[in-house]
Structure formats: structure tokens, C-alpha cells
């Protein structure tokens, strides 16, 4: 802001040579904001407008549907299993990658990032190929009465896959930046490995960890494509909330569909607010760059 003020025209019509004219600025701002409104903001408002189209009473009626309630519980359950698994993996992977030098590190990093560049449908499908009725291990699982696909374990696996990189890729750059000197100091003062981790490393990365958990949780609860493939769409049994939205929508039950969607949109908004607060408040303690 002060930089703008310093380069602002002095006197009559001396335009600054290192910024655009006021007209060009206005045009760019209008173009950018218009595009954002058209593609991003209006859809968000539409979710709530459609959900409350027939009034507040009808909105809340949508949540009395036992299938929707079951979907909410299932979504919470799947996230409650998948997110902690990602935390454990993220901490282990970032400790190994950030604190040590070894061969094949960049290959490992590429593999961790891989789920981001795989289609969600393919993410779900690879577990169908392994554990589905005619998949590699399907007949064996069937003989032993274990069901993974079209059941909760499949939903958890697909969710873990799509949320795999979130925690690790927040922690790794930060821990690499922080180096190993504080841990070495703790060890030389007599702390053992676990104590060093709990009292030195973990407090140093706590905001980045929270940031990663937040994104991981939002994706876990909102995932659609991957869980759609492994779910089997059994009403009240294997439908997570996003899948329930699809079913209600395809049943032309639009108000109920948008009511269920409004819960997910609310979750997204809360995530966005906390994420922005973390970035403003603890930006330097999260990481130098935030993408995704």
C-alpha cells in the first residue's frame, strides 16, 4: 500500500512509470472480480439459496431422513479413521525425508505427490481391482467372508489415497527449512529420540500440522469420485454425505440435496476461514509457499 502511495502521481497528470494507468487498473480489477464471481462465488450462494428455497422448516426436514443421518455419521467415521492415518504417515515421512539425507528421496517425494495427479475415479478403481468381486484378491476375501469393496474399509482406503499428500507436503518443506540443529541440541543435552520429537520437533511444526490436517479433513469429508467407485451406493449403509447429495439430486429431491450440500459447503467455508486465519497469523510458521 505504501509502495503504491510512493509511486502515485505527484501534481497533475504524471503517471507513474512502474504501474498501470488508473483506467487499466480498474479494468483489470473488474475483469478479475467478475470472473471470480461468475465461476466461484455465485455457485456458493446458489447452494444456500436452493437449500432454503422452501423455507427454514423444509430445510431442517431434510435432516430427518434416516439415510441422510446415516450418511453424515458415515462421513464422520471415515474421516475419523483416514485423517489420523495421514497424520501418522505425514509425521513419519517428513521425519525421514526432512531430517536425513538418503538416496531416492526425490522419487519418494514424487510418489507422495502422485495421488494429486491421479483422477479420483482411478484412485477408487485401483482398490476395486485389488479387492473387488472379480479382482485379484476378491475370491480369497469372499471365501473368508471379508468385505472391503462396497463396505466401510473400501471407503476408508479410497479416502486415505486421495488425502495422502496433504499432511506430508505441508510438513516436509517446513521441516527441511528448520534443519536439524535444534534436535541435535536436545539430543546432546540428554533427551532421547521420542522426547526430542515431542518437545522440540512437534511444537516447531504444530501450525503446519494443523494446516495439513485441516485440508486433509476437508478433502476426506468432501471426496466424491473415489468413494463413489468403491461405495456401491447402498442407501443408509455405504453412502457418505457427498454420495447422498448425488442420490437425492438424482431423485429430483433438490431441496434435500442442496440442504445436505449446504452442510458440506459450510464445512468448506469453515475450513477456508481457519486456513486463512492460520496463513495470516502464523504464515511464517506454516511454510513459505501455500499451494492447495
Amino acid at each position, binding site marked *: 500500500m505504501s509502495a503504491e502511495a510512493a509511486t502515485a502521481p505527484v501534481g497533475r497528470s504524471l503517471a507513474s512509470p*512502474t504501474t498501470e494507468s488508473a483506467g487499466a487498473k480498474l479494468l483489470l480489477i473488474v475483469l478479475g472480480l467478475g470472473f471470480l464471481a461468475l465461476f466461484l462465488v455465485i455457485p456458493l450462494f446458489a447452494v444456500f439459496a436452493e437449500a432454503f428455497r422452501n423455507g427454514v422448516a423444509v430445510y431442517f426436514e431434510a435432516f430427518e431422513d434416516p439415510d441422510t443421518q446415516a450418511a453424515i455419521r458415515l462421513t464422520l467415521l471415515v474421516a475419523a479413521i483416514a485423517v489420523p492415518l495421514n497424520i501418522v504417515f505425514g509425521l*513419519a515421512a517428513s521425519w525421514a525425508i526432512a531430517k536425513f539425507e538418503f538416496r531416492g528421496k526425490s522419487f519418494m517425494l514424487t510418489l507422495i505427490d502422485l495421488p494429486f495427479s491421479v483422477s479420483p475415479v482411478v484412485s477408487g478403481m485401483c482398490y476395486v481391482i485389488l479387492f473387488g468381486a472379480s479382482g485379484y484378491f476378491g475370491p480369497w476375501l469372499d471365501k473368508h467372508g471379508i468385505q472391503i469393496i462396497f463396505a466401510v474399509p473400501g471407503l476408508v482406503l479410497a479416502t486415505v489415497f486421495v488425502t495422502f499428500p496433504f499432511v506430508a507436503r505441508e510438513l516436509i518443506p517446513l521441516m527441511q527449512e528448520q534443519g536439524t540443529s535444534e534436535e541435535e541440541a536436545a539430543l546432546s543435552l540428554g533427551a532421547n*529420540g521420542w522426547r526430542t520429537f515431542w518437545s522440540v520437533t512437534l511444537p516447531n511444526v504444530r501450525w503446519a500440522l494443523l494446516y495439513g490436517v485441516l485440508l486433509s479433513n476437508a478433502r476426506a469429508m468432501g471426496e466424491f469420485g473415489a468413494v463413489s467407485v468403491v461405495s456401491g451406493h447402498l442407501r443408509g449403509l455405504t453412502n457418505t454425505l457427498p454420495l447422498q447429495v448425488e442420490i437425492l439430486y438424482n431423485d429430483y429431491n433438490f431441496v434435500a440435496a442442496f440442504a445436505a450440500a449446504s452442510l458440506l459447503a459450510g464445512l468448506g467455508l469453515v475450513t477456508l476461514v481457519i486456513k486463512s486465519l492460520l496463513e495470516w497469523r502464523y504464515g511464517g510458521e506454516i511454510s513459505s509457499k501455500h499451494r492447495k
Partner: protein
Amino acid sequence: MSRATFRTPSALPGFGLTFGFAWLWLTLIILLPLGGVILWAGSLGVERLIQIASDPRTLAALKVSFGLSLLAAALNAVFGLILAWILTRYDFPGRRLVDAAVDLPFALPTAVAGIALAAIYAPNGWIGALLPFKVAYTPLGIFVALVFIGLPFVVRTLQPVLIDLDRELEEASATLGARRPVTLARVILPTLFPALLVGFALAFARAVGEYGSVIFIAGNVPYVSEIAPLIIIMKLEEFDYGAATAVATIMLLISFALLLLINLLEAWTRRRLGHVS
């Protein structure tokens, strides 16, 4: 001996445990399942693979997915550049709010975005009613959804580069007599171009695999508005694992190639901007 060259000695404990666990988990969750898909597709034989890949309906879907993803990423590159520019260079009321709003597509579950876009771009929707042509349930609807999910990739790739951009270059350009548009086109744009390409590639890669936000607005008309991921789902529902894995492998190969390309582009970006920041 091999161990000594494998990793540099360190005073810190826990390498074996964390390294072993990370690889075990990577293998179980990522490598084995994806390997299974490729193995299944590989066991089909070349003839069957070509037969699946040249099925007109599959080909049409691949064309729709890749073609529209390119177009959507291109539009996002233009408007993502404008947004990144106004967010880093200009000050206007609500700038922080706008900055946070760019992440909406990351935060909003794809199914939610899908039904919302379908509702507003439908012929009787808020925006659809104003337009003289149909958007929802046509390829144009797919395009709208792909633009929605791709935008943040371009903006978030460009922002850090714009912040680090050396303003002295612009001042030098101005003192040498270049007008502002010339400086923008010949000094700033070439510096940003590698990052713009990376953002474009990321948006494109995401769009190719996107499913949730697309299927509600696409209409899913065979040969016209079916996307490649939908073909995979249909084949899986028919228990035709062979065809599903074949289509998926084609898409995975392209994803891999893109990831490689993105890494190369990033390296190129770093080299080019080595003198800045």
C-alpha cells in the same frame, strides 16, 4: 558399505523406523493398488488394448476430456494471471477476502460444486436463463465445471513468483524509455511465463481426471458430453475390469507424462529466475 553410501550419517535417531514405515505405507496405499491397475491392463495384450482404446465411444470421451481440459486451462491461464496480478499489485477493498475466495474450488466438495453449477447454468437457472444458448447438459457445461476447479492452480502458482518479482527490472525498463504496456509485454510476461505454464499444466492435469463437479452439469450424452472418468465407472459397473483398467492406464500415462513435464518446467522456472529473489 552400501549403507554408508545410501545415506549420509546423522546424529538423529529414528531413520530406520520412519523410513521403513513411510515406504511400507506408500507401497500398501499407492504402489500396490496402482501397480495392480497397470498389471491388469498389461495382461490384456496389445490387440485387446488397441481394440478398447479405439472404441468410438471411448475415443469420443477421451477427446472431450482432453480437449475441454485444454480449453479450460487456457481460459484459467488468462484470468488466473489477471487475478494473481491484481491480488499482488493493487490494493482494493476486500482484497484479502477475494484472495481467500480463490481457494473455494479446493474447499468446496466437488459434488456440491457440481449440483450448484448445474442449477445456475441450467436453462431456468440464475445465469442459464440470461444466456441465449444452452450451457448445462452440453460440452459447454463441462467446460464451465473444469474452469471452476482449475482456477486456483494458476493463481496460486503465479502469486509467489509475482511477489518475488524484482521491481527494479520494471524501473530499469521504464528509465530506458519503455512505455508501461511494453514493459508488461516484454519484461514481466516473459519472466512469468514459466510459472504460467506450470499453473496451466496443473489446472489441465486436474481437469482431465475431474469427475464430481462435471457429471451433474455434463448431461452425459454418449459421443457428445461423456468424460473419460465416466467411461471408467461404466466399465467397472459392467465388471469389465479390462476395459476400465485400459482407459485408466491411458489416463495414468498422460498424468505421469504431465507430472514429469511439470517437474521439468519447475526446474526451468528456477533456472530462469535464478537471479531474482
